[in-house]
């Protein structure tokens, strides 16, 4: 009887004794076996990733160090000539700037448009809720090429909008809404919106109607409820949606290509041109590396911002 050992005076130092997932096969004699199991599970995936992702990025980095010789010939060497060519040329700075502006514009517009819709979808008690959500996400199931085609039919000089405006006599010559940055951006916003809607719907988990009602019952105006309760709670979802659209927009290619009219110079179209038209692979690779770095920087900044929001 009586205690096997007396208690020790370390208050609250014991770690939680539940919820630690156990390895599939614990037991002292099975450590090495566990390691083999782990390797067997990871290796096929790692090989796939190596082939489909790591090698291509490395090959691209290597290619970016080659040179584009006379008459367009490819010269195997180690040089930073392509990077110099890009970074010393104001035109490419403009391209990088355009890319960022377009990404930012698309993300901003997509978030502004998605937010009310996502809020509505999360709150609605309609029996059509499922259908409404499906409708909002349905465009994802439609090829981006097909939707770009739809936008050409809407925004083109002889498209729907211009036909209506001309017929009504609102304008005399068609508005230029296709073959430029405007058209590409409008179409891209629509094409990428489902992603931000999805991100927001799943990110609004913390939003509980009771909280808003509580704030209302405490005397907060509708505006106050929104700025003090709704907005802060939905901020993470907004951020994820913004990042997702930004990332997808600055790497978008099909839409700016088909709707840019040769006037939209962004990294994605430049990379494609250099890779398949001019066949300047080193330059294309250098541009791609730069895009990758821009991407990395942005995601880093994003993570910082998210951390700050979570702490604040």
């Amino acid at each position, binding site marked *: 009887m009586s205690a096997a050992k007396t208690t020790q005076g370390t208050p609250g130092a014991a770690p939680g004794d539940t919820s630690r997932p156990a390895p599939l096969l614990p037991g002292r004699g099975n450590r090495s076996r566990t390691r083999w199991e782990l390797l067997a599970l990871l290796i096929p995936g790692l090989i796939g990733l190596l082939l489909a992702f790591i090698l*291509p990025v490395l090959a691209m980095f290597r290619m970016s160090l080659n040179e584009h010789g006379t008459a367009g010939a490819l010269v195997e060497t180690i040089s930073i000539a392509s990077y110099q060519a890009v970074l010393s040329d104001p035109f490419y700075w403009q391209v990088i700037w355009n890319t960022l502006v377009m990404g930012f514009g698309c993300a901003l517009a997509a978030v502004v448009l998605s937010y009310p819709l996502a809020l509505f979808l999360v709150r609605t008690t309609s029996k059509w809720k499922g259908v409404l959500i499906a409708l909002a996400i349905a465009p994802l*199931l*439609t*090829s981006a090429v097909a939707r770009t085609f739809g936008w050409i039919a809407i925004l083109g000089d002889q498209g729907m909008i211009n036909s209506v405006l001309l017929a009504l006599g609102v304008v005399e010559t068609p508005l230029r809404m296709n073959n430029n940055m405007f058209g590409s951006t409008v179409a891209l916003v629509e094409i990428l919106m489902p992603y931000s809607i999805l991100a927001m719907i799943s990110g609004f988990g913390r939003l509980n109607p009771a909280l808003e009602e509580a704030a209302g019952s405490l005397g907060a105006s509708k505006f106050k409820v929104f700025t003090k309760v709704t907005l802060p709670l939905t901020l993470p979802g907004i951020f994820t949606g913004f990042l997702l659209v930004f990332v997808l927009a600055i790497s978008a290619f099909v839409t700016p290509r088909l709707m840019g009219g040769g006037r939209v110079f962004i990294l994605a179209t430049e*990379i494609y041109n250099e890779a398949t038209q001019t066949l300047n692979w080193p330059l294309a690779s250098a541009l791609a590396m730069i895009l990758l770095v821009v991407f990395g920087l942005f995601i880093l900044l994003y993570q910082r911002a998210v951390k700050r929001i979570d702490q604040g």
Partner: protein
Amino acid sequence: MLKVLHRAMIVAIYLFLLAPIIVVFFISFNSSNRLALAFEPPSLQWYANLLSNQGFIEGARVSFITASITAIVVLLIGVPVSLAVARYRFKFKGAVEALFISPLVVPSVVLGLGLLLVFQPIGLTGTFAGIVIAHTGITIPYVIRTTLMSLTTADVSCEEAAKVLGANSWTTFRRITLPIIFPGLIAGAVMAFIISFDEAVISLFIAGSGRVTLPVEMFRYLQYRSDPEIAALSVVLILISVIIVLVVERAMGLRKVMNG
């Protein structure tokens, strides 16, 4: 008043979101080859044309085959990785997980160029194998994410209970874990299939003059022609995706998994 405004705003956003699909739908029944919405009697000629467009048929065949193989391959290599991340303790686990998610944050033009540079010297451009490898890279994050989600929401104690009852690792996986995460796997595979089927940019880079997927065929078609045939094709594709989603939803409760 405010409520009416709010309603109107929601309707307007829906309209914007669905505008191209609606337009494509109407154009596909146009009898003229103009892109505009004409007031002409509806016609099914563009749907009939689809049936004789060898490029589209071949593209659809290539896309279907590669997307199916991609979905299977990605499941086969992605599920074990998720299992390792969710159920084992090891060093660099965070790094491994991040690595497998990272193709998601690499622009597809960049990946496309990289794949082109790797595939060209070894003759993988324009081949089934090349397309499958390329699409494996971009779909693996989705499968790993959905699988991880089902693995982490699944009750670990079910697996523990099975083991206490005498099941070894493999039996536990086969009899307990796999059936429980199955809806998540299907959701992941369907996503992988749809993404692979729709993917245009990377396929464009690695298509070369060989096998061409349907989106690439459509993109190229749009570069030379813009008639309602492409609209008809889009409508058919939309119908197919809707059917796939409905079937999966009925069978597996996809929404539960996607929302979870």
